[in-house]
C-alpha cells in the first residue's frame, strides 16, 4: 500500500510519457504521432503537479477562513502546468493544420511515403 502511495502518480505520469514517446517513435501515421505528442504532454503535466503535491495538503486557494498556508500544496507547478497545457494545445493545433495540408498535397499521412527531401 505504501508503495502505491509513494509511486502511483509517478507511475501514471511516466507511463504516459513513455507510451507517448513510443507512439512517436514507432508509428508511421502523422495523426497518430500527434496523438503520441499529446499523451506525452499530459504525462509531463501530471509529473509536474505530482512534484508540487504535499500529503494531505489543500488546494492553494484562501476561499474560507482558517486555511493554513503551511498545509497547502505548492502553487508554482500548478502555474507552470497552466502555461504548459496552453502551449501544448498551441503546438498540437499547428501540427494538425500542417497534417491536413500535407494530406492534401500527398494524399497520405504515412510518414514512410512522405519523403521527397531525402537525398
Amino acid at each position: 500500500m505504501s508503495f502505491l502511495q509513494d509511486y502511483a502518480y509517478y507511475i501514471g505520469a511516466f507511463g504516459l510519457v513513455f507510451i507517448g514517446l513510443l507512439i512517436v517513435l514507432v508509428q508511421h501515421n502523422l495523426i497518430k504521432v500527434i496523438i503520441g505528442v499529446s499523451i506525452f504532454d499530459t504525462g509531463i503535466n501530471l509529473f509536474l503537479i505530482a512534484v508540487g503535491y504535499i500529503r494531505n495538503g489543500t488546494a492553494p486557494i484562501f476561499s474560507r477562513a482558517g486555511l493554513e498556508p503551511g498545509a497547502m500544496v505548492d502553487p508554482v507547478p500548478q502555474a507552470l502546468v497552466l502555461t504548459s497545457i496552453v502551449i501544448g494545445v498551441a503546438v498540437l493545433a499547428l501540427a494538425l493544420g500542417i497534417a491536413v495540408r500535407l494530406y492534401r498535397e500527398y494524399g497520405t499521412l504515412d510518414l514512410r511515403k512522405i519523403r521527397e527531401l531525402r537525398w
Partner: protein
Amino acid sequence: MIVIAALLVAVMLAAAAAALVFRDLLSAVIASCVVSLIASILFLLLQAPDVAMAEASIGAALITAVFVIAIRRTERYEE
C-alpha cells in the same frame, strides 16, 4: 483514496496503450481524450482545481474537437 487514484492511473494507462494499438484514428483520438479526462480527475485529487479545469476544457474537449475535424479532413484508418 489512494486505491481510487491507483485504479484511475491503471485505466488511464490502459487508454494510452489503446491509443497506441488502435488502427482506427478516431478511436485512438477518443482514447487520448479519455487519458486527458482521467488526468484532469487526477489533477483534482492532487489539489489542483485550476489545472483540472484547464485540462478538462482545453486538453480534453477543445483539442479532441480539433483532432476530429482534422481526421474528417484526412482519413480515418491507418494504412
